[in-house]
């Protein structure tokens, strides 16, 4: 699968969702716009996904989505409990989490899913891919973070390798 | 069921407007500029929520388009402002 195709199919779907009709003329215009934008894209170092690996990619992606959703819901409930507690039992701080992957895309996706769950937020990433994460409750996060990052890392490497 | 939903949605609309006012109070009385910027981000998120609620009340999809445009503008402008405050340039 070429990079242009890999770019223009999601763009085409976004175009269809925005315009919301499936007349042939609109489909043609959408395809032209999507291919045009993906030809104009800047140079990026993105992994190429082969046709035969597409089912594996989708399966790992769906599992990754469910894991992220579980993290988000757990984080939201624990943050709600902290906020509604009259004593405000917070123990904030910044901890270092090594992302464990060399690729920029893997680090960026890990940082995104960490920041998405309330209670943890990536403040900075250094060149070796260490994510400096601000947590509402340092002890809890530090206990869970290694396993969660290992799970994310294995799924991400299954998606992009 | 229908009337319960109607009453609920007006209550939800008023609650979101009130919360946007509270966030705007934090913009007015923040201890530093980044705290004010976080309040501005919260206020614009709640404004997007108000557009979504209006689209439910009027049963009209056009307000979701308005919400998409408002979301794009507010997220990009918040990121640009944060970068401007720390680096004194946008790009």
């Amino acid at each position, binding site marked *: 699968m070429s990079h242009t195709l890999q770019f223009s199919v999601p763009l085409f779907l*976004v175009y269809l969702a925005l315009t919301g009709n499936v007349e042939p003329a609109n489909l043609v215009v959408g395809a032209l716009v999507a291919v045009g934008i993906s030809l104009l894209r800047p140079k990026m170092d993105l992994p190429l996904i082969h046709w035969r690996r597409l089912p594996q990619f989708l399966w790992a992606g769906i599992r990754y989505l469910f894991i992220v959703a579980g993290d988000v819901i757990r984080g939201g409930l624990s943050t709600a409990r902290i906020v509604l507690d009259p004593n405000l039992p917070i123990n904030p701080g910044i901890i270092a989490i090594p992302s464990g992957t060399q690729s920029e895309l893997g680090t960026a996706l890990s940082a995104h899913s960490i920041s998405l769950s*309330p209670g943890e937020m990536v*403040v900075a990433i250094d060149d070796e891919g260490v994510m400096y994460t601000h947590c509402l409750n340092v002890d809890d996060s530090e206990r869970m973070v290694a396993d969660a990052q290992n799970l994310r890392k294995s799924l991400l490497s299954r998606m992009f390798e | *069921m229908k009337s319960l939903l109607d009453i609920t949605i007006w209550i939800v609309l008023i*609650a979101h407007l009130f919360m946007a006012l509270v966030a705007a109070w934090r913009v007015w009385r923040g201890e530093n500029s980044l705290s004010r910027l976080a309040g501005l981000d919260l206020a614009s998120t709640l404004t997007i929520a108000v557009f979504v609620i209006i689209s439910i009340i009027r049963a009209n999809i056009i307000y*979701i388009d308005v919400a998409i445009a408002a979301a794009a503008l507010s997220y990009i402008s918040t990121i640009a402002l944060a970068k401007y405050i720390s680096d004194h340039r946008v790009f």
Partner: protein
Amino acid sequence: METVLQLLAFLLLVLGTLFSLIGVIGFIRLPDVYTRLHATGKVSVFGLVFLLLAADILTPLATWKALLLIFFVLAASPAVAHAISSSAYRTGVPLVGKRDDLKGKLEVGQEKD
């Protein structure tokens, strides 16, 4: 079927508003910028997404647009939180709490305004 969908939309509206309310309360109560951003993230991740799911059910024809806006919000709100917090750390906003693994690793300037 209709009633079940309306009941689901009602629950989503109430839950979304409750989470937004908790987020705003946290935004007022928490002590510094970094901790406040956690509360802001809760408003956009739970409040806005639940409202959009309710709009998905109640507004005719809104299915794909609301899903697109959900995807967009989920993709953009961590970026906003990261931008504000990294900007705060680099302008030297003080941090509540003892542990700071990032100390001395970024050049920290003074805020000029």
